[in-house]
Structure formats: C-alpha cells, structure tokens
C-alpha cells in the first residue's frame, strides 16, 4: 500500500503544473462551499434569532383559520376561555415548552391630536412576553427596558416608524381608537413609554400595550385571546414539538363546526423571511452542486490525461506481472490523493477565512435590521466537502483507472 501511495504521489508531482491547477480549482471550490455555507447559515440564524426572540416566538397557536386572515388581525377568530384553559394545561405540562405568552393582536387608529394613522398592536403581559421574546426589550431604543414592566397599564410602546412619522416622543400622549368584533368603536389615551426599532415583516412594526388595556379598549369581558406565542427549550426540535402539539390539539374541536379548533404554526409559516431562508439554503445546495461538478470534471479530465499519457507505462507494469487490480488501485489512489489533499487544503483555507471574518466583525444592514456576521465553522459542511470530494474523486478516477486496468499489455506496449 505504501508503494502505491508513493507511486501515486510521485506521479502527481511529475505533472506539477497540471496537478497544481486541478488542485487549486478543487481547493477554491471547497473553500467557497465552506465560507458560503458558514456565512449563509450565520445570516439565517442571525435573522431567525432576531425574529423568534423579538416578536414571533418559536411557534404560535391560533384559532383555526386565523393565520389565513392574519393580515386583517381578525377579532372574531379568538381562542375562547374554555379552550384557552385546555391549551394552558397542555403547555404547562409539556417538558419542551420553556415559556408561552398570550396575546391579543388588533389594528387601531392612532392619533397624536394633530395627525392620525393606522397601527398594528400586540397586547401582552410584559413579564410573560419577555420570557418568550427574550430580545424584545433590546429592541426598545428609548424608554423603559425592564422586561417585567416595559409596558405597564396605560402605557404604549410604539414602533420607530410611527414615532418618526407622527413626531411622537417618549412621554407624549396618544389616543388609540379600535373597533371590536361586534363593530363597537372605543378610544383610550396612552402614554408613550417606549420606542422600539423596526424589524423584518409586518409584525416587526407592531406597537405594544398591556393585555388588560386591550380588553378594556376592545370591551372584551372574558379571558379570550387571539394567539399564543411559544418559546421552546430546544429550538432544533421545533419540527418535532410542533407535530406533537398539533396531534395533541387536534382532538379539541369547535363546538359548532366539529372541526379542529386550533392551528399550530412555526415561525417559518408566519414570517416572509422563511422564503429568504429557503433561498439561502437553495443557494448553498447550488454551490455544493458546483463543487461536485468541479471535482468530477477536473479529476476525470486529469486522470484521463494521465492514463492516455502513460499507456506505455501501463503496458510495462502489466507485462512484468502487475495484476489488473493493482493497476486499478494505482490510478484510483492518484485521483483520490489529488481530491483529498485539495479538499483538506480547501478546508484549511475556508476555516482560516471564517476565523478572519469573525475577528474583523463585519456588520451590515438587512432591511431595517443591523446584522453582525459571525459565521461559525460549519463542521457538517467541512465533513460534507471532504466526503463529497472523496466520493466524487473516486467516481471520477474509476473510469480512467478501469481503462488502465483493462488494457491489454501487448496493445499498451505498442505505444512506447
């Protein structure tokens, strides 16, 4: 085996320029896959972290049909008090549910006594909301940031775009006018207690009030709500927990319809960023395919050339008794060695660039969010690239190696 490795290595060195060119191509390909994957995943997890920790939660429970009408924030599709008790009981006993927050979401007219505009509002209990949306208070750029009391009864946190558009400052009074599910209109005065930055998606520009204030404004007498946002202990188990909750909530049916009362959605189904995230994932797959193509074509090309240039040599080693299997192994080893060495160098370069990016700390603006690029070394991606290169190198070397092994020595010797 050592001899096969030695001969393969020397044959690679024999055509130094060609080996270096092919190796560089594979190295660059592997490095690009690792870097692109690390940056893409970093971008995704950064944005997903902001979205889930700032307003969406990991998943949400609504009354069936609510999400289909979510643009209108309907108040007639609420979770009634008896059903809310059932959900509470389920969530309180679920080991994977870290926290949950009950919300009423609605639209209202907001006026500063000189201008009026529309605004989307999320009514919450701040202490519960802070446990689900752990980064919410960090988004509050001015005003109260205590997670327990950042929105007290009688106060409102408004988004930056409303603050700027209506020239409303901290401590100002504004009036909210809302229509409840029965068509009744009511108005209440609130004191601006905080101004929050905007983030991606329609929910990123919501204002916040206390849940009891919303009940008063909308004249809701029972404990009904429009949604429950949930934070899980392990985000990576999101899909599994969602399925579990769906199956556990499915037997609860509506009194009139007899159909399932609840619907459960992950953040992906609630945010437009999910599409961007899928595009990023798709792009990573495309880059992987490009890598596979680069490795396949370059190794196949170099090994075919190698076999055709060394027909005489193949004839010699075959005539002196080298078994076809060993000739096959010689050429396979050469192709594999080229692939593996290139993949390892590509990994080192890729990881080096990732470390440099982390050291430099690159910040950039995505929509209304400031993201900090902190790519982690993608262990799975580095393993994937090495395994892929090894497999594709073997595949690409196989045909030329078989050609060499199957050569008739008497024919091959005529090429000398």
């Amino acid at each position, binding site marked *: 085996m050592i*001899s*096969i490795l030695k*001969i393969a290595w*020397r*044959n690679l*060195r*024999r055509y130094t320029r060609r080996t270096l060119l092919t190796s560089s191509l594979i190295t660059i390909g592997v490095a690009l896959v690792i870097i692109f994957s690390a940056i893409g995943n970093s971008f995704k997890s950064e944005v997903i972290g902001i979205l889930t920790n700032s307003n969406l939660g990991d998943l949400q429970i609504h009354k069936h049909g609510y999400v289909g009408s979510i643009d209108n924030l309907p108040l007639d599709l609420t979770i009634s008090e008896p059903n809310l008790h059932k959900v509470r009981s389920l969530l309180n006993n679920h080991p994977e549910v870290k926290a949950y927050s009950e919300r009423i979401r609605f639209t209202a007219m907001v006026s500063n006594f000189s201008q009026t505009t529309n605004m989307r509002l999320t009514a919450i209990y701040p202490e519960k909301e802070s446990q689900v949306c752990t980064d919410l208070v960090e988004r509050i750029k001015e005003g109260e940031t205590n997670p327990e009391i950042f929105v007290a009864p009688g106060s409102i946190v408004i988004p930056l775009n409303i603050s700027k558009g209506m020239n409303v400052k901290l401590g100002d009074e504004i009036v909210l006018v809302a229509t409840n599910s029965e068509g009744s209109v009511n108005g209440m005065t609130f004191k601006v207690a905080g101004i929050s930055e905007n983030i991606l998606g329609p929910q990123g520009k919501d204002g916040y009030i206390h849940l009891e204030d919303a009940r008063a404004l909308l004249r809701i007498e029972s404990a009904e709500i429009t949604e429950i946002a949930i934070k899980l202990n392990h985000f990576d188990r999101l899909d599994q927990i969602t399925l579990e909750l769906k199956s556990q909530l499915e037997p609860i049916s509506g009194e009139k319809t007899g159909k399932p009362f609840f619907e459960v959605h992950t953040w992906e189904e609630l945010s437009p960023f999910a599409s961007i995230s899928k595009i990023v994932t798709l792009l990573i797959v495309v880059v992987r395919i490009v890598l596979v193509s680069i490795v396949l074509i370059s190794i196949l090309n170099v090994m075919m050339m190698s076999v055709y240039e060394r027909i*005489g*040599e193949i*004839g*010699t*080693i*075959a*005539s*002196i*008794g*080298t*078994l*076809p299997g*060993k000739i096959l192994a010689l050429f396979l080893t050469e192709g594999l060695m080229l692939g593996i060495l290139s993949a390892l160098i590509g990994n080192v370069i890729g990881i080096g660039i990732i470390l440099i990016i982390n050291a430099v700390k690159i910040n950039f603006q995505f929509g209304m969010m400031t993201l900090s690029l902190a790519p982690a070394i993608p262990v799975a991606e580095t393993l994937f690239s090495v395994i892929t290169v090894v497999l594709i190198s073997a595949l690409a070397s196989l045909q030329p190696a078989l050609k060499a092994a199957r050569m*008739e*020595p*008497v024919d091959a*010797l005529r090429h*000398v």
Partner: protein
Amino acid sequence: MSLILLENVKKTYISGEINVPALRGIDLSINPGKFISFVGPSGSGKTTLLNLIGCLDKPSDGRVLVAGSDITRLNRQTAAKFRGDNIGFIFQNFNLIPVLTVYENVEYPLIMVQNVPADKRKKRILDLLEKVGMSDQKDKFPAQLSGGQKQRVAIARALVTEPKLVLADEPTANLDHHTAYKVIGLMHAMQAEFDTSFIFATHDPKIVGEAEIVLTMEDGLITKTQENPINREVN
C-alpha cells in the same frame, strides 16, 4: 523437459476486413538455460512470437507451453501472475518507471508483483545492482541515466524475480555499438550465473553473433535454425 514448447502456433491479425497472418504454423522446443535469438526482417513475426512466449498475447491457433503451463488457457489475472513469477522482460526503449529511482525500479516487481518481504528484497536488489554495475547510481531517476545505464537497470529488473525466462525485444536497438556490446556481455554473464534462458528478437548482428541458437524467421515461419558454439569470456 522443454522450457518452451510451441505446437503449430498461428497468429492472424484482423485489420478491418483483411486477415494479416503474422505466424503461419510454428513448431519449436527450447530447453532451459539457453541464449537464443530470433532474427529476421521487420514483419517476419519475431515480436509476435516473443509476445506469445511472453504470455502477453494468445495465438489464433496451436498451443504454447512455457515452463509446463499451457498459457493459451490463462485468463488476464492468471496470465499476469504467471508472467510475474516466470518471465522477465527487457524492452527496446528500456521502459523504466520514470517516477521511481534505479533501486525502486528494480524493487518494483518484488513489491508489486511478488510481495517479497522487505528484509529479503534489499540484499537481492543490491546484489543485482552490483552485478550490473549500477549500485553507485541506485538513487538516480531514469531521466538522469544514459541509454546503456537504463538497459542495465532493466536487466536487473528483469532478473530480480529470479525468472526462468527473460525475453528481450531489440534490447540493443537504441544503444551505440560499444554500449550494446557491454549490455550483451552483461546479459550473457547473467544467463550464466542464474541459468536463466534469454530469448531475443533482433536484427542486430552483435546479438546474433553471441546467441547459442539463432532462429531465422521469414514471413511468419522459422526458416533456419543455426547453433553457434559459444566460448565467450564475460566482461
């Protein structure tokens, strides 16, 4: 017992729709330890006959027995093994492996063909390199050697597996007069020392004059057999 026995051996090459007969029915018996030369003009069938004896090709008709084995019955795998165990080759263009040193070229058949353990390999290789006068060049690569030196390495490589038979196709064709004589002398010495049969295909009169038996070929047939009394001092 004959080392080589050929019975009515024919070989026809098919070129498109034309059949080109290379050997038309050869009967031949060669005893071990001989220094034999096939001579004849180009296209007379020398190399074809050598390829058949060397188990590199198969006859269209007839039987070829080498060291008691009917090589026409061997498949690719067993033919390769048979060659590795019984036959050494010396080529016109030396055919050394360019990425291996002199020592490694001689070592190659022992590792890759016969799987001889390392402790036994070294002594055998160094002895042979000493005998062919290449021990001081053992770390050089083929590109750093002259034609005569390369052929001496090729002789060492052919003999290192202790074959019963060495086949050489025009071994002096690419060598100058002086070097060719030295190489022939070396092969003669090796034949005498190892009792290995050497068979050449050549039209080099230098070799013809050194052979114990000269078989003249014309149009795919052996037309003349001549025995030379050899009484040569080895250099």
